[in-house]
C-alpha cells in the first residue's frame, strides 16, 4: 500500500496536470464547510485529476495575518491559494501573482463588482485577488423585543442607545439571570475587529480616520464617535465586550442576552438555526448614522482569494480560484448568508430568498467605508494595532472609572500623532529629528552655524 502511494506521488510529481493544491481557509461560521463542498464539485468537474488540501487557519484574523507574513516572507510554496481580508491585499501585494495572466477581466465580470470591492483587488494594472464574498457591518436586533416594548427600528446611534437602555432596564426585571441582559454588544477586543467598529462609528458621525493622507482621529467627529462607544460600555454593553470577537458577541446575542448586536451577514443563518434561542426573532438593519439624516456607513469587510507568487501550480490554482469566486458559487453561498460581490446577483430570486435583507446590504455595500489600509500600505498592521490598542484602553478605562472626556481627548491626540508618524513613513516624508534640532541650536548658539533665515533675508533685501 505504501509502495502504491509513493508510486502515485512520484507519478504526480512528474506529470504536470496532476497537482495537489493547498488552500488556506478559516473555520469561522460555515466557511470551511462551504469551501469543502465547492472544492468537491470542482474536483468532480475536472475529473479527479487534482487533489486539494485545506489548511485550516487560526480563528483570529490577527493570527492569520501573522501566519501569512511568515509563510510569504519565507517564500514558502506550502500554500497556493490564500484567503485574505480585503484590507490585507495592499500589504501582501508583492507576494501575490498577477491573475491577469490567467484570465481576461471580462471573463470574471469585474465590472459587476461593487466599486469599493473592485478598488481593492487591483494594484496598478495588476489584478491580484478574486473576491469570494462581500461583507459589510450590519446591526442585528431582536424584533420580538422591539415589538413587545412598542419600539421602531432606530435610524441614529442615539435612538439605538435609548431603545437599548430602555429594554435593558425592563428586561432585567424579568430576565432569569438578572444582571445578564444587555442592550448592545459589539467587538472591542484589541484586534482588527475593533478597528472595523471604530472606522464604522466614526464614519457614521461624519468623520474618518484618515483624510487626505493626514490622520484626523483628534477631530470633533472622532471624539463624538469614541465618546458614544464609551457611553455604550458604561451603560448598555457588558464590560466583557472588551474581550469579544465576532463569535463571542454572537454567543451572547444568540443565547438571548442582548437587544442589538453589530456583526457581519454571516451570522444570519447561524442565528436562525432552530437550536438557538433567537431563531426567527431577529431583524437586520444598516449601521445607524451619528446625526439624524446623516449617512449610514457599514465598514467594508469581505474576503478574497489570492494566489501566492511562490505557488508551483499557478494555472491550475487560478482555475480553481475562478471556479470558487464565480457567479454560480457565490449564488450558492448565499444559502449560508455569505454575500455575493456581483451587483447583479442581488436581483436574483434565490439570493433574495436566502437573504431577506439583501436590499439593506446592497445599499450598505454601495457606500461602504474602507479601512485606511491603502493609506498606511505596508504599515497598516501597525497603524491598526495602534488604533485598536488605544481605543481598547480608552474603553477599558471608561468601564472602570466612568467616561472622562478630557482624558479621552488626550488619548486620541496621542494616537493621532502616532498615526501621522506612520503616514509620513509610508509616504516617504522624513520627520525632522529632534537631536538635529538640539545640535543646530547649540551650533547657532556657539556661532558655528549661520542662521539660514537671516542669510535668506539679507539676500532678498539686496
Amino acid at each position, binding site marked *: 500500500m505504501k509502495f502504491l502511494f509513493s508510486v502515485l506521488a512520484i507519478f504526480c510529481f512528474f506529470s504536470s496536470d496532476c497537482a495537489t493544491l493547498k488552500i488556506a481557509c478559516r473555520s469561522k461560521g460555515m466557511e470551511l464547510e462551504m469551501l469543502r463542498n465547492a472544492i468537491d464539485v470542482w474536483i468532480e468537474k475536472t475529473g479527479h485529476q487534482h487533489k486539494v488540501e485545506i489548511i485550516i487557519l487560526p480563528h483570529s484574523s490577527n493570527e492569520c495575518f501573522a501566519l501569512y*507574513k511568515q509563510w510569504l516572507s519565507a517564500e514558502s510554496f506550502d500554500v497556493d491559494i490564500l484567503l485574505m481580508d480585503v484590507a490585507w491585499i495592499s500589504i501582501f501585494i508583492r507576494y501575490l501573482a498577477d491573475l491577469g495572466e490567467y484570465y481576461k477581466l471580462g471573463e470574471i465580470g469585474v465590472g459587476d463588482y461593487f466599486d469599493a470591492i473592485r478598488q481593492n483587488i487591483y494594484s496598478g494594472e495588476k489584478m491580484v485577488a478574486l473576491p469570494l464574498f462581500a461583507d459589510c457591518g450590519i446591526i442585528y436586533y431582536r424584533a420580538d423585543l422591539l415589538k413587545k416594548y412598542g419600539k421602531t427600528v432606530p435610524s441614529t446611534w442615539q435612538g439605538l442607545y435609548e431603545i437599548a437602555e430602555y429594554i435593558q432596564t425592563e428586561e432585567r426585571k424579568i430576565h432569569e439571570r438578572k444582571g445578564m441582559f444587555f442592550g448592545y454588544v459589539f467587538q472591542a477586543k484589541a484586534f482588527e475587529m475593533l478597528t472595523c467598529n471604530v472606522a464604522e462609528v466614526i464614519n457614521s458621525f461624519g468623520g474618518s480616520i484618515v483624510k487626505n493622507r493626514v490622520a484626523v482621529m483628534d477631530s470633533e467627529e472622532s471624539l463624538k464617535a469614541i465618546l458614544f462607544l464609551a457611553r455604550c460600555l458604561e451603560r448598555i454593553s457588558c*464590560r466583557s465586550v472588551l474581550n469579544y470577537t465576532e463569535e463571542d458577541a454572537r454567543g451572547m446575542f444568540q443565547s438571548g442576552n442582548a437587544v442589538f448586536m453589530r456583526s457581519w451577514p454571516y451570522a444570519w443563518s447561524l442565528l436562525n438555526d432552530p437550536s438557538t434561542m433567537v431563531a426567527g426573532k431577529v431583524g437586520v438593519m444598516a449601521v445607524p448614522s451619528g446625526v439624524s439624516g446623516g449617512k449610514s456607513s457599514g465598514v467594508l469587510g469581505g474576503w478574497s482569494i489570492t494566489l501566492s507568487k511562490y505557488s508551483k501550480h499557478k494555472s491550475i490554482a487560478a482555475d480553481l480560484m475562478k471556479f470558487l469566486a464565480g457567479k454560480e458559487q457565490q449564488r450558492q453561498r448565499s444559502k449560508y448568508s455569505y454575500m455575493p460581490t456581483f451587483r447583479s446577483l442581488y436581483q436574483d430570486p434565490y439570493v433574495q430568498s436566502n437573504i431577506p435583507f439583501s436590499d439593506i446590504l446592497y445599499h450598505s455595500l454601495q457606500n461602504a467605508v474602507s479601512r485606511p489600509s491603502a493609506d498606511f500600505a505596508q504599515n497598516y498592521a501597525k497603524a491598526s494595532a495602534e488604533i485598536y490598542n488605544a481605543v481598547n484602553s480608552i474603553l477599558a478605562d471608561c468601564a472602570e472609572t466612568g467616561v472622562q472626556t478630557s482624558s479621552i481627548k488626550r488619548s486620541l491626540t496621542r494616537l493621532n500623532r502616532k498615526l501621522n508618524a506612520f503616514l509620513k513613513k509610508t509616504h516617504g516624508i522624513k520627520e525632522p529629528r529632534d537631536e538635529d534640532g538640539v545640535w543646530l541650536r547649540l551650533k547657532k548658539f556657539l556661532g558655528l552655524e549661520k542662521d539660514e533665515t537671516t542669510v535668506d533675508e539679507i539676500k532678498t533685501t539686496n
Partner: protein
Amino acid sequence: MKRQSMKSKRQIKSSLSNWLFLAPCLFVLAVCAGWPLLRTVFFSFTDATLENLRESNFIGIDNFINLARDQEWWQAVLNTFLIVAVSVPLETVLGMIVALILHRNFRGRGWMRAIVLVPWVIPTIVSARMWAWMLNDAYGIVNELLLKASLINEPIPWIASNSFSLISIILVDVWKTTPYMALLLLAGMQSLPQDCFEAAEVDSIPLFQRLMKIILPLLKPTIIVAMIFRALDAVRIFDLVYVLSSGNSANATMSVYARKHLVDYADVGYGSAAATMLMFFIVFLGVIYAPFNRKKLQNLD
C-alpha cells in the same frame, strides 16, 4: 557524605568520557538553542523585518534605546514582575500545604499524588482556554455560580477588564503551578531524615511548631531552589496572558510584547531586542540568586 566525595573523585578521572557522553546532547543544544539565541541577539542590533531578513543593516543599539523609551515596554516589565512577585510566593505556600498533606500516610495516597498533578500536566494553552470559558461573563460557570449565590449583581468581566485580567492570570497560574511546587517540595521532604519527624511525633509536638522548627529549616534549600525555578519560569509567562486578556498593552508581559513586535508587526530587529532584554532579565535573576543560594546551602551544611 563519603559516598559523594568518592563519586566526585571518580568523576574527575572519567571527565573525558563524560564529555564524550555529553557531546551529542551539547551538539543538539547548540543547534536548537544556541544558534537561535545567537541569531536573536544578532538581529537585535539590526533593522531587520520579516521581508528583508537578508538585507538588514546594522544599526547599533538604536533598538534598545527605543525600547527604553517605550512606555509600553516598561508596562510589560512591570506586569511581568508583578505576576512573578504575587504568584510565586502564593504557589510556594499552597504547594507547601499540599506537600504536607501528601507527606502523611493515608489510604489512597498514591492515587492522590497522581491526581494532584493533573492541572500541571494539561498543556497551558488548553487550560488557559478552559479557564477563559469558565471565566466568560456571559456563559461562564464562575459568574453563574456567583450570581446564583447572590454574591454579585452583575457579571464580573474576569478576562475583559484590565484589572481583573491580571487577577485572573495570577489565579490560573497559581492553579496550574501549585502541583508542580507541591511535587518539588514533597520530593524534598521525602529525602529529609525521617527520624526527626518520628521523634517529633513521639514527643507529640504541635503541628505548627513541628512545621516551623523542623520541616521548614530542613527544607529551606529545596524551597529556595523550587522558588528560583518557578521565578525564572514565570518571567517568561506567555500563553496565559495571551488567552486571558483582551490583548491591549495594559496587560502585556515581556514575552507578549516581544511576540507582538516580532510576529504581528514583523519587526524582527526590534522584537529581537525585546526578546534579548527578556533573556537578560532571566540571566540577571539567575545570577543574583545563584550565590545567595550557594551561601544558604553552605550555611546549612
